[in-house]
């Protein structure tokens, strides 16, 4: 009795939910009747998500599996991915903007003073000052799915820092979160600036702390004169060091327990350019490109979220939002040098990877070398490992180029994306 009820509902839901589904469900039997040809299974699984964003003609293509016991499969049954769209109120970052945001914070309105200030030191060196405020924030990592994150400046990943080798870096760090945090940088620095030892933990701000001015442009002397333990107890610390070596680095919280402080969202990218910038080299020929060759730089942080805290990620992504760049492909111009700053900060899984479809790229491991002999469509990264990937999409071949972790599990849990390679001017 109940079953007949259920089968009735099956028929109705095709009509009630949305138009696409109404169109596709009855096709099951029609296709079986017509007995049209079949498409190989793997191809179906990988290309079907594309159909979500394409025309109705594309939707009308019936993808069928010939090896199953069922004679008909609709495209619907192969539509992998999340359902719905994320809102703006609790975004971890503005994903499209974040790709090219260097020395910028996503939510400057949350900060009491400027995020980034660049000035000249008496000795002629450049000084980059940053304001970092750690805070707790619920972020939307997939449509309707909220994660209680710990953030730098309200964003996950944290702001991308960029300096030239030899520049002075000064980070004003205030902890407005609920647990002790630090900023631990990869790169050369005195061990006192390491942000990793127990006595270097910065405790949640007590409020009484801010008796001296702080933030970019302020005088750090009174703060530095204070006992460091007392300074950190009050919720503030200052990290200062020289940007070195050239390469693609990262920063993250090093409080304990480490796993939780990292996977909750306290990490970001730190780029050190060589003086004069990185040379432009054609990834295909490994020969120099002219200095004025168009360059398109993108920051991608491979991360994951363990939403139920069982030591296993429920969501994988680049830049925090599952499937975001799949639903909103990243526009790139054919012929441009596309440079991806790729950092792996995925917790719990030892390895993550990057695989580009229908093309090859040059891999600069840790970005410390300016030339590379690694030419591949696949690169593998341990936790904390990173590389600069350079690619150029070929003339005459516009289209959507998929890229994703080659761990299929990660890909299907959100780490899947598309480049939309276009001729001429790029339309976002």
């Amino acid at each position: 009795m109940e079953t007949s009820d259920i089968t009735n509902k099956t028929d109705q839901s095709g009509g009630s939910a949305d138009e696409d589904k109404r169109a596709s469900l009855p096709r099951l039997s029609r296709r079986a009747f017509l007995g049209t040809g079949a498409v190989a299974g793997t191809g179906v699984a990988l290309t079907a998500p594309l159909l979500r964003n394409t025309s109705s003609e594309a939707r009308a293509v019936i993808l069928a599996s010939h090896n199953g016991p069922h004679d008909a499969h609709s495209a619907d049954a192969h539509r992998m991915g999340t359902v719905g769209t994320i809102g703006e109120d609790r975004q971890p970052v503005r994903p499209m903007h974040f790709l090219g945001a260097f020395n910028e914070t996503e939510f400057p309105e949350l900060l009491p003073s400027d995020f980034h200030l660049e000035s000249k030191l008496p000795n002629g060196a450049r000084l980059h000052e940053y304001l970092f405020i750690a805070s707790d924030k619920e972020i939307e990592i997939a449509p309707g799915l909220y994660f209680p994150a710990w953030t730098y400046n309200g964003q996950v990943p944290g702001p991308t820092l960029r300096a030239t080798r030899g520049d002075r870096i000064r980070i004003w760090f205030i902890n407005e979160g609920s647990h002790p945090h630090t900023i631990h940088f990869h790169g050369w620095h005195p061990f006192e600036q390491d942000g990793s030892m127990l006595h270097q933990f910065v405790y949640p701000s007590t409020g009484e702390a801010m008796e001296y001015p702080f933030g970019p442009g302020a005088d750090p002397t009174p703060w530095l004169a204070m006992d460091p333990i007392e300074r950190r107890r009050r919720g503030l610390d200052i990290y200062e060091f020289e940007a070195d070596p050239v390469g693609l680095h990262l920063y993250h919280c090093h409080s304990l327990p480490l796993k939780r402080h990292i996977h909750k969202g306290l990490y970001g990218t730190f780029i050190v350019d060589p003086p004069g910038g990185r040379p432009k080299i054609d990834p295909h020929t490994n020969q120099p490109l002219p200095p004025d060759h168009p360059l398109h730089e993108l920051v991608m942080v491979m991360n994951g979220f363990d939403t139920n805290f069982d030591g296993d990620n429920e969501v994988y992504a680049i830049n925090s939002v599952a499937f975001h760049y799949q639903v909103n492909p990243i526009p790139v111009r054919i012929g441009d040098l596309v440079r991806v700053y790729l950092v792996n900060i995925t917790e719990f899984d030892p390895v993550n990877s990057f695989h580009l479809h229908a093309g090859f790229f040059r891999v600069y491991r840790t970005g410390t070398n300016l030339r590379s002999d690694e030419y591949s469509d696949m690169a593998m990264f341990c936790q904390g490992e990173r590389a600069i990937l350079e690619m150029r999409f070929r003339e005459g071949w516009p289209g959507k180029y998929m890229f994703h972790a080659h761990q299929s599990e990660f890909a299907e849990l959100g780490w899947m994306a598309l480049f939309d390679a276009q001729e001429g001017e790029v339309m976002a």
Partner: protein
Amino acid sequence: MNESGQQPRASRRVPVLVLALLPLVLLGLLVAVFVTSDPTAVLKASFPPIEELAFQRVTLEPGLITLKVSNDGPDSLTIAQVMVDDAYWNFTIEPDATIDRLGNATVKIPYAWVKDETHVVKFITSTGVTFEHEIAVAVESPRPTAALFGLFALLGIYVGVLPVALGMMWLPALRRTRRKFIEVLLFLTIGLLVFLGFDALEEALEIVEGFPRVYQGMGLLVIGGIGSFALLTALNNELAARQGDAADSSATLSYMIASGIGLHNLAEGLAIGAAYALGEITLGSMLVLGFMLHNITEGLAVVAPLAKSGAALRRLVCLGAIAGGPTIIGAWIGGFTYSPLWSLLFLAIGAGAIFQVAWQILAQMARQHEPRSPLFDFANLGGLMAGFLIMYTTGLLVAV
């Protein structure tokens, strides 16, 4: 003494009804105060919401997985995304992704599931909590077609009706055995029944474990089990009082046994049908044979009280239908609309009935036994143990 003099005067002035209602009125006031001031808001603010979700029924159609879920937690929850085999997947949910406490929703996932293989469906709520359901062996869910109706009926006949009927065919042999041997046989029947009763209890407890907590599976087990025991006892007393100490009490007893076994077989049919429908077992011929052997003993149990008096064929057919027939009905219900709630209730009622019947046989034997010699001697012990062992060994054949 003064006080004792005052009390009756006080209660005389206030009617009994008012006295009886006073606590309820005060409780109502308290509830009103509680609801308006809501002191638990303080508690709620400091704790994250507790989310619970129970999977009620899964239906597989070509290219489509349909799941009925219910929220049996204290708060409402919102299903944010759905994963199948660790991949986020397209889905629709009705009536709403937010499910209130004790509310239901139907989730449809268009998915090219693979026949005979395992799939895991995982729901992730807005707070990141996950709920998982494993489809152990994916097979297309049966639709209520005439052919399938027939198939389940046949299944019921094979595992329920035929074995019971065959077991009842021992009656002529029983009629010609000695009185003592019948007593031993009755103890064997008690052994069979007690074993069956515990078997049903175990299955019921298993269901209780996976049952939505809010529905209090243990409570249903108590209501069904002890309720049926008490009901049958009362019924038996009423019948006995009406008939006097008629010779036909053995017929009454065999009807009681048949009813108890019938209820048990209803639950058994339910379980078989449901397991078949949910793809948890494939009914091989070995399993059907096992059920036949297992259930043939039930036929023996039904006719054992009739060894002395015998019975007309019509009565025997009637008894057989009561004991074996429900297997068919159970298979139908289980196959088409399996629900753990009904399984639990039938198992509980069956267990209560079976224990009651075993008790009834013992009581009747005690009444008819010669007062001098002990009722429970080694021969009868042998009968009891033989009953246990028969059930145990035939049970090995149907263990799934």
